[in-house]
């Protein structure tokens, strides 16, 4: 399997050969930033189109079709439209907080995005507490949403932000507990460590029953965390206009839109990392020929493919279940998912300490 660190190390040596260390580091940081920005925007565009196509498919429609072949240029038209719309300056808002909120939402999502394992040797941030860092940073997004709702000085945004805040902090617990279950099995928090521990079998296969329960809990909680699907009550259209971003216009609104789709990718990416082996190809022990063929597929394609598949499930939820009420939403988390998650964690601890999990 191709290791991207060969390319990056070659580039690093090339730069250090002709310039001092600090300049090389600066240039590399700028390149990493530019690549992140590129990947972020391209994926956001892809995801917006992907959701529209999948939704059209679920509703027996044909989806975007007119602009470009199969409507593939539709998204560029949308982006340009969003950029040339006026950003309306409201005079009753808390101006500073109103402008600060999109920064919080986007920075949280870009930093978590940078932590994802894109392929072998292709990962920007790799702390030894990787997965913990991700949960910590993604919590910042809630602050942005609460700021957006409160500073807009409108009742609908206020209610939307409060609902969103309650929902996101509640379901964050279940995400944390599902992550704990897998960290307990893997014995490491670093992203690279987690991926490498799944060399001989993804955690969903080697982790026995608790890993499967944790996966289900994670997918439900992730749907709620991204304010999607049956849990989209923070922006329930017929009740709250557009929820916490009602008062944002033009590209200001675009930031929330962008972050929402990217968060869908991010939660799918984390699900891939924790349960489906990150960029690790599918290996079946004993089938050496099959494993060798699987190794030929580049690691980035494995990662993106699995993430897009998980996103498909999350989009599927949206068209299968009606929107829940706030009391149902909170009851689902606090009375079902969390106690089950805690029990599941103990189960995993028993399995790990007894050595009952499958060899991985």
């Amino acid at each position, binding site marked *: 399997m191709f290791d991207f660190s060969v390319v*990056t*190390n070659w*580039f*690093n040596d090339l730069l250090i050969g002709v310039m001092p260390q600090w300049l090389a580091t600066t240039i590399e940081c700028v390149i990493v*930033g530019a690549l*992140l*920005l590129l990947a972020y925007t391209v994926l956001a565009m892809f995801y917006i189109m992907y959701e529209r196509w999948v939704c059209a498919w679920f509703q027996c429609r044909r989806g975007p079709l007119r602009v470009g072949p199969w409507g593939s240029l539709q998204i560029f038209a949308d982006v340009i439209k969003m*950029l*040339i*719309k*006026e*950003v*309306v*300056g*409201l*005079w*009753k808002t808390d101006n500073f907080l109103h402008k600060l909120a999109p*920064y919080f939402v*986007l*920075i949280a999502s*870009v*930093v978590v995005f*940078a932590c994802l394992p894109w392929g072998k*040797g292709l*990962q920007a*941030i790799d*702390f030894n507490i990787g997965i913990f860092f991700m*949960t910590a940073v993604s919590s910042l997004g809630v602050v942005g949403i609460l700021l957006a709702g*409160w500073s*807009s000085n*409108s*009742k*609908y945004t*206020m209610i939307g932000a*409060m609902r969103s805040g*309650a929902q996101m*902090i*509640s379901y*964050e617990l279940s995400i944390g507990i599902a992550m*704990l*279950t897998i*960290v*307990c*099995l*893997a014995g490491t*928090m670093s992203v690279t460590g987690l991926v490498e521990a799944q060399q001989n079998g993804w955690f969903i296969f080697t982790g026995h029953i608790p890993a499967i329960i944790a996966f289900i809990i994670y997918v439900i909680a992730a749907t709620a965390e991204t304010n999607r699907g049956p849990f989209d009550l923070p922006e329930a259209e017929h009740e709250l*206009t557009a929820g916490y971003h*009602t*008062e944002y216009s033009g*590209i*200001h609104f675009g*930031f929330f839109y962008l972050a929402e789709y990217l968060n869908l990718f991010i939660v799918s990416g984390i699900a891939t990392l924790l349960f489906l082996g990150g960029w690790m190809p599918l290996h079946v022990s004993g089938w050496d020929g099959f494993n060798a063929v699987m190794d030929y597929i580049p690691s980035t394609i494995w990662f993106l493919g699995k993430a897009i598949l998980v996103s498909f499930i999350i989009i599927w939820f949206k068209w299968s279940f009606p929107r829940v009420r*706030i*009391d149902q939403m*909170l*009851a689902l988390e*606090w*009375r079902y998912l969390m106690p089950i998650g805690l029990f599941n964690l103990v189960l995993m601890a028993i399995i*790990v*300490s007894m050595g009952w999990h499958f060899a991985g």
Partner: protein
Amino acid sequence: MVLLGIQNTTLAVTAVITGAVLVFAALLIARLIGPRSFTQKKGETYECGIPTRGESMAQFHVGYYLFAILFLMFDVETVFLFPWAAIAKTIGSTALLAVGTFLFILVLGLAYAWKKGALRWK
């Protein structure tokens, strides 16, 4: 593995700056190519299309506050459990005993909140 031999902290700061640059650059482009006009009515809160009545930064349901406190309790618990989970595999059955005691006390708290009706949305 550390990418290019750069410190992870540096890369994290790079990612933060990248996010800020994305917002700032897009706003700048929008300001340059977007139209701008000012009227008295336009600057008003949109809400649902009709003029806003009363105070908008209003009080909200106390239930949200209650769930925030509960969240705080269990989130701190998650913070404590992460280091345990990272070494649970190596310390064997001691880990089981430790987490059993810890979770038992926590679940008592949850059960108390449940019994008091804090988990019911009123």
